[in-house]
């Protein structure tokens, strides 16, 4: 083992008696436990949102109203979108970042461990408040996850469900803002000696850029929600045209948050894909610096494209927002080509994390291409608010975020639990889930092009639409089967004795230097950090050392 100065200061810290079980989890400030709480909670929300989606797909299998009445259906799609965007996607990336960021930079914990715990509990209670909006008379809001005014105003949504939604989402938003402050502070102040910014692992770079996006975009959402609440209960008229307000203002603020939000939901996952491809190609990430610049370019552009969600309002400059939206394709293309070039001449192996990473590249590309189509204002005149948009956004969020999430779960599960997930179940999970994603979302493109609007509780008389909807429901069922394989895999892995080595994949980054699972303060030793792949360097040096010893003997 290479001794480093990190090993030297052996300060003995008096630890409190180890609190066991529930109390331990309720009071923990350990970033790993908080990370697992975040990941577990958001995964439960993912399952709940998925069940709502399955009910919707069941209803849409054929024309006519069969299982849920229109007003229930409208509550379902509102809450499905809300749960997936705010209670699954955002906290999932926060959870992964919580678990991994301190480990990847060689830190003992986050900069503000108690704030970290507070953000988790704010998120959890915010989420529960949002779910409780199903309870009051009138049920959950039925306005779409974008809660456009004036539909979400007191006149058209008088129920208390809308208020619970506003308060709950507001709380999770504040939690995200505080969390991002914590990530930025941790990355800037807690890096191990030798870990310069240009040696920070690419996933952690993704987290940094995401945190900056959260810091700048969530306040716009908070303001929008506050204004809506004032309109509803305190006699405001921000969005009421009869008193000088503007419904368009609501959309500007919402999408000034909403478009960066979709990059918040993808950038840490781009980081996962980059890391997984590099490890299973046995090569450094091709163009590491270009990848960082691409992150920064996407982040900057993401604040200039919000009004492409408003092309059909007749209230925004079409060429300007088309151009900037198109430009996002360039840094995203750089990422794709760098991933492919990382595989070039590599030693590729395909355990489940790599399968999901490559599957991601296949599926996400379709979402990228259709995103470029949507960036064109005239094409958007046809596609806006149709199933084309639904297909596109699910292609990037499910084919992108969710598939990258599974890549990350399979990759880091051994580190977090000390147990390997089954490769056999992993492959079943991969093929069923990926097949399901394609089958569920590709037919939506044709539905949208031919004019089926989104958020319709029912559709009528068109044999092609009937078939495409049937296929899409079949795909949703297949995805559900895939997720069941994953849950089976998860449970059987957790029931078996620990079998994972510290570094099962021959990883690149510091988390693989510690035990699986890591001890409370993460590291007993660190390898020297001379590049963004300290563990690779260390293994190579070990190998050279062996050769030298052999030569000397």
């Amino acid at each position, binding site marked *: 083992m290479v001794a480093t100065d990190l090993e030297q200061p052996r300060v003995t810290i008096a630890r409190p008696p180890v609190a066991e079980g529930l109390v331990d989890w309720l009071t923990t400030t350990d970033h790993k436990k908080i990370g697992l709480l975040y990941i577990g909670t958001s995964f439960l929300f993912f399952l709940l949102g998925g069940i709502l989606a399955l009910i919707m797909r069941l209803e849409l299998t054929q024309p006519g109203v069969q299982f849920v009445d229109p007003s229930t259906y409208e509550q379902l799609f509102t809450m499905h979108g809300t749960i997936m965007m705010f209670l699954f996607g955002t906290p999932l990336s926060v959870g992964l970042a919580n678990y991994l960021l301190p480990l990847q930079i060689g830190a003992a914990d986050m900069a503000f461990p108690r704030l970290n715990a507070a953000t988790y509990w704010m998120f959890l209670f915010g989420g529960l408040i949002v779910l409780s909006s199903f309870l009051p008379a009138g049920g959950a809001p039925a306005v779409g996850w974008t809660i456009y005014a004036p539909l979400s105003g007191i006149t058209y949504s008088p129920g208390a469900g809308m208020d619970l939604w506003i308060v709950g989402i507001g709380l999770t938003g504040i939690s995200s803002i505080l969390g991002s402050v914590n990530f930025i502070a941790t990355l800037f102040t807690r890096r191990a000696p030798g870990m310069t910014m240009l040696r920070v692992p690419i996933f952690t770079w993704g987290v940094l850029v995401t945190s900056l996006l959260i810091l700048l975009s969530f306040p716009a959402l908070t303001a929008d929600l506050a204004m809506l609440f004032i309109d509803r209960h305190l006699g405001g008229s921000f969005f009421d045209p009869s008193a000088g307000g503007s*419904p368009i203002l609501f959309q500007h603020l919402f999408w000034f948050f909403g478009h960066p939000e979709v990059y918040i939901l993808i950038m840490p996952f781009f980081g996962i894909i980059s890391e997984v491809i590099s490890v299973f190609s046995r090569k450094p990430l091709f163009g590491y610096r270009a990848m960082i610049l691409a992150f920064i370019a996407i982040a900057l552009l993401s604040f200039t494209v919000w009004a492409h969600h408003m092309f059909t309002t*007749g209230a925004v400059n079409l060429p300007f927002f088309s151009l900037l939206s198109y430009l996002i394709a360039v840094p995203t293309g750089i990422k794709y080509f760098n991933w492919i070039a990382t595989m*070039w001449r590599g030693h590729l192996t395909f355990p489940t994390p790599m399968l999901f990473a490559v599957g991601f590249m296949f599926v996400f590309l379709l979402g990228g291409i259709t995103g470029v189509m949507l960036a064109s204002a005239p094409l958007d005149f046809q596609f806006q608010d149709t199933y084309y948009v639904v297909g596109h956004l699910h292609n990037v969020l499910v084919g992108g975020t969710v598939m990258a999430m599974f890549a990350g779960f399979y990759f880091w599960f051994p580190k977090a639990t000390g147990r390997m997930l089954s490769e056999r179940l992993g492959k079943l999970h991969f093929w069923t889930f990926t097949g399901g994603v394609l089958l569920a979302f590709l037919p939506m493109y044709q539905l949208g092009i031919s*004019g089926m609007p989104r958020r319709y509780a029912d559709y009528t008389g068109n044999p092609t639409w009937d078939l495409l909807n049937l296929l899409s429901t079949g795909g949703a069922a297949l995805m559900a089967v895939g997720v069941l394989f994953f849950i089976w895999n998860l449970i059987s892995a957790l029931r078996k004795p620990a079998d994972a080595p510290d570094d099962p994949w021959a990883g690149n980054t510091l988390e693989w230097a510690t035990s699986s699972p890591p001890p409370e303060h993460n590291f007993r030793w660190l390898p020297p950090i001379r590049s963004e792949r300290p563990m690779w360097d260390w293994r190579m040096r070990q190998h050279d050392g062996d050769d030298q010893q052999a030569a000397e003997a």
Partner: protein
Amino acid sequence: MRGARRAVPLAIAAVGLAVAGCMPTPETTQANAIDFLYLIAQILAAGVGITVYGLLVFMIVRYRRRRPPAPGEVPPQVRGNTVLELIWTGIPLLIVSLLFGMTVWTLARVNDPQPGQPVQLSVLAYRWGWRMDYTDYGIVVQSTGPGHGPEAVLPVGQPVTITLTSQDVIHSFFVPQFLFKRDAIPGMTNVFTFNIDNPGVYGGQCAEFCGMDHYAMPFTIRAVSPAEFQAWVTQQQTQAAASATPSATATP
């Protein structure tokens, strides 16, 4: 390899489905411009899709390792290549520049005023129906209940100008065969013009979620020759005069 053999047809089918989707037959002059833009975008998308999938499948098939590497055997540790990276920054930049140029050109054609005196149709969207007012002729057609929309009769080959607003929440005026929609926003008026090329009946619907019966908010546009249109106008006006109350239905 097994995975690649499965992935190739899957990938081809996927690109095909995503980029080969067919627009409805465009029925207005403006829609023809949009349809042409879509064709160009599809060709570029297919090119990008085939290139990226081709490279990806090649890497997977060519560089897959079946046996564990010999001890100490490592692939070349290439960290980047400035020329390559400039190429794959430059080419996408060119593609999106081309698309942007096409977009601006198409927008100009969509907004281009067409010769002729336009028929003025003032459209009011509300929960959950449409009121369409031929301001020059004093004719009004209106929804008669959820799922029962009005039928607007319009001439082919002559500009039609829609003045669109809403009386409550945001709606959207969408005719799939015109490849066009525009939002109806309370407190704001949107004006747009189209020229219908061919006679026919074209379904329209609300495309911005507006509450419970959003999905049951259709309307139809029946495009007829200018002579038939004049006859329809005269008939509506006579009917209205005869019954002394404005006709509330589109049925001639």
